[in-house]
């Protein structure tokens, strides 16, 4: 029997973002079919896998680090991935997710759960069930080492395609001119 050739393992992770970057990933459209031949998607909000696996080759991380769960996940990702990519403006700059930073957590939670509540105006505080907000939402690279940065809110499918293909060919994608774009 022929040995099965190991395809590069790719993961995508969703931290404090709106999932727009993942939507842009899906906008690769027919290129997704090509991609499916080249990689193994081992972990992703788009795949039903519960725990982040070991020995991942490439991980794309969407979103800022905004709560304790994100923080833990970011460390797990770094520990088990060869290349970590900051996937979009929230991961790279904090972006929309970090707009809350100028208000304190108490003020923020009060506004969301009490002032604007229609039905029950109680604050969820069982942090075994619901992640605890960090004092500030921060870019991913302010917490862990990141190998490359995708920009834009969200990054274009072309940029995502370029990044993945560069990595599949063993090059770290460089975005200092082409694709560099905030917002």
């Amino acid at each position, binding site marked *: 029997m022929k040995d099965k050739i190991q395809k590069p393992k790719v993961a995508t992770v969703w931290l404090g973002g709106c999932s727009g970057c993942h939507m842009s990933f899906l906008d690769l459209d027919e290129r997704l079919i090509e991609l499916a031949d080249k990689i193994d998607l081992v972990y992703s909000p788009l795949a039903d896998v519960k725990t982040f696996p070991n020995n991942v080759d490439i991980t794309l991380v969407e979103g800022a680090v905004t709560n304790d769960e994100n923080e833990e996940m970011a460390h797990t990702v770094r520990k088990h991935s060869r290349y970590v990519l*900051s996937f979009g*403006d929230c991961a*790279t*700059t*904090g*972006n*929309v997710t*970090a*707009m809350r*930073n*100028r208000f304190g957590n108490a003020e923020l939670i009060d506004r969301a759960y009490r002032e604007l509540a229609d039905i029950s105006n109680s604050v969820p505080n069982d942090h075994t069930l619901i992640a605890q907000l960090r004092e*500030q939402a*921060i*870019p991913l*690279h*302010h917490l862990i080492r*990141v190998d490359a*940065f995708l*920009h834009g*809110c969200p990054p274009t499918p072309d940029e995502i395609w370029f990044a993945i293909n560069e990595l599949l060919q063993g090059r770290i994608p460089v*975005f*200092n*001119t082409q694709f*560099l*774009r*905030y*917002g």
Partner: protein
Amino acid sequence: MAVKTLTINGEQYSAQEGESILSVARQHNIPIPTLCHLEGLSTVGACRLCVVQIEGIPRLLPACTTKVEEGMVIQTANERLNKYRRMIVALLASEGNHVCAVCVANNHCELQDLAYSVGLVRVRYPYLFPNKQLDATHKDYVMDHNRCVLCTRCVRVCDEVEGAHVWDVAGRGINSEIITGLDYSWGNSQTCTECGKCVMVCPTGALFEKGVTVSEMEKKKGFLKYIITARQKKEWVSIGNE
């Protein structure tokens, strides 16, 4: 007026005595990034983006305020200069609240363009997330301090071109802020003529027209050339849609 000969990036140029390095560079299409400088306004040398390297001078000097001298040997672009320019843009980004994705000036912003031209891939400095205010009391315009980079173009255009001097800078260091009058709200200004010149020269989304939303605020600066040439040469130039 005496003519000076100087070398920029290995090429020889001649310039008028009293001219700035930036002015010579611009005449010969040598790119030097600028932010606080704007043709038609006085020069303040505040942002330091235009720094150049001059042989024999250990410090980097701003091209907009440094006058040409005979025999100067100037570098306008190299890795050292780009490193400092990148640091300046990164510091500007980290000390305000710049969320391009929801900004009125997105895709029409000089700070964004600078970030691209210096290759600012990410900001290493901690973001300060300052608690800045927004003043929407004027009937036509808004001032959002979150996006102000303190270039003082608004202060200068209002004083030097419109002659109203509505704006000033208050505070020091990181607490510096642009104020209206003696720190009144803009809508209560007795001196604002509602001309909108400050809005048009502002390089970012700090000053904008009411009613615009994300990416819609395009600044038109052609009026400056129109007024300045009229004043200096008594000529009315066409500025098209600039």
